[in-house]
């Protein structure tokens, strides 16, 4: 295990380093720079733009800019945002909790309820419940999350006033703490979580159902049943464990998507997370902020893969060999 783990972590570090290099140079190659944007907003002369270019080190050769960035990363300093004029690490730290709360809640719901419903469908294959759940999951799978979000917010917030239309907390109850704060956040979290969960759960359900159906027909499940085991242990201890691999892969893929892929949903619900921040950074070509968010996303992608590999390692004896 330690050797395998070490080589896997080394591989992850190499992937991350390669991603940083590619991202850094790709961003600089894209048309548009932050000062062109500022010049457009503020009617600056070319000389003034040059002064600002020097201030942010953008007049340096790309290689010098890159080495300065890497030195900063190693020190834990991601630079200063050009548009906000504040340290990027502070900005990311402010936005990360909101994203993790939204993404984490969806992830937990997705991989508990989604798995449970997928297993339920497989157990009752062909039943009315299976047919209904299959139809619903297909509908969820085919529904764009931003559209679903717009419909939900229009119905549940604008028309019926059941839930807030956006934000993470009530702007006028900011000083509260304890249970009332938790409930306030929960009310704001409900619609975005529902939107993202419907779509993501549909995917998990379909994968889990298919995987379980394959396993439920296998000899070892028949043997377990023939031995007289209860249906519960047969399903969860024998079958499900073997039907988990596609879900692990899915988890590895979902982990980064839940940090990055909720840009539209964050927009619809004015959720103050990393998605809207990266959108802001891209449109303003705020290189330090853009690199900070990109670094975070790359880290999550790599982490997702490492977690998936570790899970495979733990669950599948063939990998351990």
């Amino acid at each position, binding site marked *: 295990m330690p050797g395998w783990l070490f080589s896997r972590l080394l591989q992850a570090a190499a992937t991350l380093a390669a991603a940083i290099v590619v991202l850094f140079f790709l961003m600089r190659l*894209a*048309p*548009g*720079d*932050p000062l*062109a*944007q500022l*010049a*457009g907003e*503020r*009617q*600056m*002369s*070319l*000389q*003034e*733009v040059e*002064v600002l270019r020097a*201030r942010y080190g953008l007049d340096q050769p790309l290689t010098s800019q890159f080495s300065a960035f890497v030195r900063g990363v190693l020190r834990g300093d991601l630079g*200063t945002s050009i*548009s*906000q*004029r*504040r*340290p990027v690490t502070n*900005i990311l730290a*402010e*936005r990360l909790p*909101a994203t993790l709360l939204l993404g984490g809640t969806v992830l937990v719901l997705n991989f508990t309820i989604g798995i449970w419903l997928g297993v339920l469908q497989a157990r009752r294959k062909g039943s009315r419940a299976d047919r209904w759940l299959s139809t619903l999951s297909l509908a969820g799978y085919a529904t764009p999350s931003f559209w679903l979000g*717009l419909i939900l*917010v*229009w119905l549940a*917030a*604008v028309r019926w*006033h059941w839930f*807030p*239309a*956006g*934000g993470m*907390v*009530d*702007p*006028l*109850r*900011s000083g509260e703490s304890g249970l*009332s704060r938790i*409930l306030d956040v929960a*009310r704001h979290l409900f619609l975005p979580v529902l939107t993202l969960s419907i779509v993501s759960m549909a995917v998990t359900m379909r994968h889990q159902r298919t995987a379980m159906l394959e396993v439920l027909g296998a000899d070892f499940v028949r043997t377990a049943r023939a031995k007289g085991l209860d249906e519960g242990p047969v399903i969860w201890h024998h079958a499900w464990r073997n039907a988990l691999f596609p879900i692990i892969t899915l988890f590895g893929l979902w982990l980064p998507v839940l940090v990055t892929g909720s840009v539209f949903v964050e*927009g*619809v*619900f*004015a959720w*103050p*997370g990393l998605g*809207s*921040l990266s*959108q*802001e950074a891209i*449109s*303003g070509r705020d290189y330090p902020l853009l690199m900070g968010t990109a670094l975070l996303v790359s880290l999550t992608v790599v982490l997702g893969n490492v977690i998936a590999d570790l899970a495979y390692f733990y669950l599948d004896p063939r990998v351990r060999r």
Partner: protein
Amino acid sequence: MRAPLWLVRVGLVGLPSLVPLLTRSPQAQGVPADHGTIVIAVGTLATLPVPTVITGRWNQDVSDLLFLKLARLGPELATGGDKRFIPQLAKSWTRRDSLTLVFDLDPRARWHDGTPVTSRDVVFTFRRTLEPGVDPQRALLLRYLASVTEEGPQRVVFRFSRAYSEQLYDAVYHVQPLPAHLVDSIPYSRFATSSFAQHPIGNGPYRWVALVPGQRLEFTANPDFFLGAPKLDRVVFIEARDPEAQLNLVLSGTADALENVVPVTNIPRVADNPSLRMLQVPSFTVSYLLFNQRSRSDRSVPHPILADSVVRLAIALALDRATLVKNVFGVYGAVPYGPVPILSWIRDPKVNPLAQDTARARALLRSRGWVDANSDGILVRNGVPLSLDLNYPVTSAPRKQMALGIQEQLRQIGVKVELVGMEGAAWNEARNRHDFDIDFSSVGLDPSPAGLIQSWSCEGLSGTNVGGYCDPKVDSLLIQGIFARKDALPTWRRAVQQLEQDVPAVFIYAPIYAFAVHRRYANVNIRPEGWWAALGEWSVTPGQQLERDRTPP
């Protein structure tokens, strides 16, 4: 699959007890009947509304709540002369000679920490603004300001290097004084990240409470404000970048006001809501088709098509601008005459822009040798087709929508237009690199017409005059307008007229912003030059307070 009994019991007993927490209604605690709270939904939350480090309109608008100017523009928004301004930090001003203005500060003015506002604050802030590298934009605007000095704690003397009619405007409009006693020890390089910038102490009608980036920015009324304590005790800005989300916040009652309802197709949704009213706020923005008069590949060579003013005039005549504006903006837009915003004091309401005349446009092009040689509908001269690229930012819905109409209208006279939609930053870069034939530009101008010199003079060629337009006659009129000490208006109008004749651009639209505001507010005033600057004058109509108005901050 039924829920366990214990869960049902907990739900039946527990949920009702949570209701008060979810819908808590604090009791009124002696809040006057016309006081209240306002929550404003904005696209971008101000993160640094502090003079000398401000970027973007969103920061400037909010800084007006915290920091006063020496004086503000009067209702007619005139920028010339010394009379039509309204005192703020300065109680009064006098003129010693054509180059010297003297301001006496209002002795009642206080910083939010209780310290009096003094001439030292004014002098410090001007000096800092003019330091190299601090704010080149403002330094350029203040280029005729020779010195700012103290004469005692309440008197400031401004000396100018040239005599011109906008001296007072320059002295009061561009700089908001900072508290020198709190900030003079902070080097400019560290100012934006200093604790002062994160928690600014101003002298305006509102005090800073808290900023949660990406979420909300809160202010509370300054009860000791020397020009009268505001009646809106609490002002909260909330951020929603998506226009649809902003609208939902105001329609659902989370927000009480929304700046700039976009797109205009959303306006009926606000108008249908009985608790909201729409307000029209004319802007200082002008959008136009800018012609590149120099070759895209070699700036020393004229543009092969657009260097000819007759071709440019034909293009202007081919466009039915009134219909384009009506189709996209409805009543929330107008066709400007020259690069003059709707609100500018130099605008001549009696002069109309060129009306569409396609017959004349075709005749003009024929007179310059542009003919449809192969009957494909596209004009050609010496084998070169009359084909032009029109760059526009895809992030601007009105420009994107109008570009299609423009393409179709120009096709009618044989001009082929390739639409080049670009992402905002890429479009800006292409514009600054002069890499366009026609650019769909948009610019927010100052109330002063002096800014025209940046984009429409030969002097501006090294800066924002990216179209390469240069007419010494216009330069001369602009300079005369700036330095005229009396009767500058006719000169400015002649300059604009000459610009229209030269057709360096076709001025397409000047937007009128649509604000949604809850009907319970009274004395609602949204100033075009600073949207929220007059918030201190708003109040709540007695008897119409909501629960949030009765909750003390």
